């Protein structure tokens, strides 16, 4: 089909500023959502792993929220929070929350009891124990959670177009409405995947820097 190719370099060149703008929007929304999620989920995970009776209800509630489809959640939040960025951000935070929470709890549960015991014997209080002993042990699992949350958030942002803010999803949908402009949909889809890979790689690098003691072993 010469009139409507799947790839078109001239489309990319002609629309470079717009594609870049949408990519920046997309990345900004993703990073903000994952950061807010992490700020809630990591302390919550630490709290939950200390008290068994809290773990069930908190993880259960997060799992129920996670079951609600993204489109439905955005549709429920948009009329209440207004059309635009806010409902998408809130929705994304909810989805990333469960992933990070689960990995934090899982990471903290694998801390070697002998190590905790030794630290307690050295006179570590609960606060120092958590920050200096348990957290570093749980770090690989938490970073794995952050990476997973980031990658799925990048894909989820596109659904935000239903409430008018979808980053690269806006280009996809615009291309769809614009008589199936294939090059536009394809470019936006590939850019979304590329963004996910770049952010994943960045987090992997951060994880490597933060856990120098793991470098010798196979990751």
């Amino acid at each position, binding site marked *: 089909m010469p009139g409507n190719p799947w790839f078109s370099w001239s489309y990319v060149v002609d629309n470079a500023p717009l594609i870049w703008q949408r990519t920046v929007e997309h990345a900004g929304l993703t990073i903000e959502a994952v950061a807010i999620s992490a700020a809630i989920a990591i302390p919550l995970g630490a709290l939950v792993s200390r008290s068994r009776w809290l773990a069930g209800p908190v993880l259960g509630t997060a799992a129920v929220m996670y079951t609600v489809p993204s489109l439905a959640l955005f549709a429920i939040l948009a009329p209440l929070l207004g*059309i635009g960025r806010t409902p998408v951000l809130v929705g994304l935070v909810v989805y990333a929350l469960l992933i990070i929470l689960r990995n934090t709890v899982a990471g903290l549960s694998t801390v070697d009891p002998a190590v905790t015991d030794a630290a307690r014997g050295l006179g570590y209080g609960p606060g120092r124990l958590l920050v200096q002993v348990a957290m570093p042990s749980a770090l690989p699992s938490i970073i794995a959670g952050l990476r997973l949350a980031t990658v799925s958030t990048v894909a989820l942002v596109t659904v935000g177009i239903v409430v008018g803010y979808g980053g690269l999803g806006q280009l996809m949908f615009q291309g769809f409405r614009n008589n199936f402009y294939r090059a536009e949909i394809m470019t936006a889809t590939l850019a979304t995947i590329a963004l996910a890979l770049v952010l994943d790689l960045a987090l992997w690098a951060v994880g490597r820097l933060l856990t120098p003691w793991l470098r010798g072993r196979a990751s």
Partner: protein
Amino acid sequence: MSAPTGVLQEAIVWLNDPLTWTEPGGILELAGEHLVMTAIAVAVAAAVAIPTGAWLGHSGRGAGTVVWLTNASRALPTLGIILLLAAGGLFGNTATVIAAAFFAVPVLLVNTYEGVRGADPDAKDAARGMGMSDGRILLQVELPLATTLVSAGLRVTIVQVVATIPLAALAGGGGLGQIIALGMGTQRYGEVLAGGIVVAGLCLAIDGVLAIGQRLTTPAPLRVRAG
């Protein structure tokens, strides 16, 4: 746009109108369509993923590929794939089912693979010592031991498919997502909210039913491990 309370009220009024549920193209008909599409997509995905996963798990091959496939599928924007299918000329319910099945395969594949591979090596050894063939070991030893993981995978898959189908409504597909897409298109936010509630309710209800089903179909000795 009206105040949030107005929208909430609109949604409640709309949901309380019996005609909303029973008219042609109403909630009940759309829900039926939604469930039929789900059933087909899950059946297609299961027909591909379970045998493949079982065989790969049995032979121990392709571990890297399976893990890579699952991770890669997370990065794929579902909406982009649905819109690309539409731009390629695949429209409506068939395209929706294909896209939903496509995204259902990795979850089911990885769970079957892990389940079969993780089957107790002693049990496999004993079966081989008794003279069982590879096929019988897979069907009578490994797959039964993998039940927990396969049924967990099926549950996640079904819920995920129910959640994916509404996206296709943005590209003209059927199912309950139509209520949201139509409401957005006509700026009737009460209906958008109501549609969101209906879709969310369906997902939660199905997950609940499946949780019970999962418990009932898991053989008693395996239940403890399922947690």
